[in-house]
């Protein structure tokens, strides 16, 4: 297209700005909105929010440098999110995709969430096309691999997971402009995964650790979840829930916010049953949307000894 280039010589090279107002960039790019939303919508997770803030600042500066012609390469953006189940990794990944999109590091900003089953095939020759299909779908956005350590099964040397890992590593290296990969999982198992796959460790720039929620944070999360569904707790129920959270944490298979969500689902079930069985006459909106203490204390968690069985 040399003819076109000659026709508009003033278009090449593009004008380089001489100064960039970071504050203004921060506001016009929409990064500010994403960070504010993150602060408002997500309870707790202070260290995670701090890391995201830092990452956003880095990317903003990097973008400014790129505009001024000081940097040319795409920075490595692949991340790993480690933490116990139910600590908000998927939710944060969604926000991260939005953030990267607004900063212009990814073109589309969608999140493709997969696990081992989506990447690894069942017979020889099945894995590569499957992994490639997923990678193609994720291009222009973020590929979120949940429980990534299942990809690597050292006990079976013929496991097809290794093939998926190789393709992933290749694309993570060669097509950094096209997609961002986020690996997620429990901290210890992810550490072991990185130890046995040094290729991943070196290609991942940002490691973000998700702490467990405190009891107070879990209670606020419960209130928010109920509020979104137009339910509320009466005072004894609130006390019962506080006690429930403390007890539930001692039970095995505690999954932070996810356990709380399940507990609330069961409480709603019990509330519905209670209303159905005790009501004689019309019920008003307040009765239909109040969770009372007996809906929560009926949980098996209260009747079980700590460290017994699953507290569902």
């Amino acid at each position, binding site marked *: 297209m040399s003819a076109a280039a000659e026709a508009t010589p003033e278009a090449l090279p593009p004008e380089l700005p001489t100064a960039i107002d970071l504050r203004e960039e921060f506001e016009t790019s929409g990064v500010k909105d994403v960070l504010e939303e993150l602060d408002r919508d997500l309870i707790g997770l202070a260290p995670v929010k701090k890391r995201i803030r830092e990452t956003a600042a880095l990317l903003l500066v990097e973008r400014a440098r790129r505009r001024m012609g000081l940097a040319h390469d795409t920075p490595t953006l692949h991340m790993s999110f480690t933490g116990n189940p139910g600590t908000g990794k998927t939710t944060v990944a969604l926000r991260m995709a939005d953030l990267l999109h607004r900063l212009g590091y990814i073109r*589309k900003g*969608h999140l493709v969430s997969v696990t081992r089953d989506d990447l690894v095939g069942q017979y020889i020759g099945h894995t590569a096309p499957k992994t490639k299909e997923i*990678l*193609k*779908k994720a*291009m222009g*956005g973020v590929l979120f691999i949940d429980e990534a350590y299942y990809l690597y099964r050292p006990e079976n040397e013929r496991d097809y997971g290794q093939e998926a890992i190789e393709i992933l590593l290749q694309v993570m290296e060669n*097509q950094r402009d*096209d*997609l961002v990969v986020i690996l997620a999982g429990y901290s210890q198992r992810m550490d072991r995964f990185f130890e046995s796959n040094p290729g991943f460790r070196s290609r991942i720039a940002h490691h973000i650790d998700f702490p467990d929620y405190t009891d107070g944070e879990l209670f606020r999360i419960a209130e928010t979840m109920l509020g979104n569904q137009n339910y509320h707790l009466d005072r004894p129920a609130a006390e019962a829930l506080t006690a429930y959270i403390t007890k539930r944490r001692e039970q095995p298979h505690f999954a932070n916010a996810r356990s709380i969500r399940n507990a609330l689902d069961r409480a709603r079930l019990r509330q519905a049953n209670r209303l159905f069985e005790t009501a004689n006459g019309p019920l008003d909106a307040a009765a239909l949307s109040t969770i009372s203490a007996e809906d929560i204390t009926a949980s098996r968690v209260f009747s079980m000894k700590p460290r017994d069985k699953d507290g569902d």
Partner: protein
Amino acid sequence: MRITQGAFSFLPDLTDDQIRAQVQYCIDNKWAVSLEFTDDPHPRNTYWDMWGHPMFDNPDAAALMMELKECRKVYGDRYIRVVAFDASPGWESVKLSFIVNRPAEEPGYRLERQEGAGRMVRYTTKPYAADKPAGTRYG
């Protein structure tokens, strides 16, 4: 002789960035893009070989560009085209098709005359490349 089939074929070859922009335009219009290749350049040859499946649910052109790279690695000595299908009428119809790769040398066509009864002559075109068996043309 440079063959001219599909869109843009009278322009100089598109660069990869230009191909990417065209493909992104197709995807943004909700057309499914796919790659096809052939070594039989006859203009009436409409059925080219498919390279993989049509890409229905890839929102970004990078996916097709990755496949194009792979396809060029294997069939870089043949014709490769991008085809965009629109399914919105209820059937798949071609909206855009353009060549993205051609052999280094395109020998062109021979015109054959078949003399019939009286002074009648039937004409037919034959690609010189088709003289060789499929798979060994161009290279």
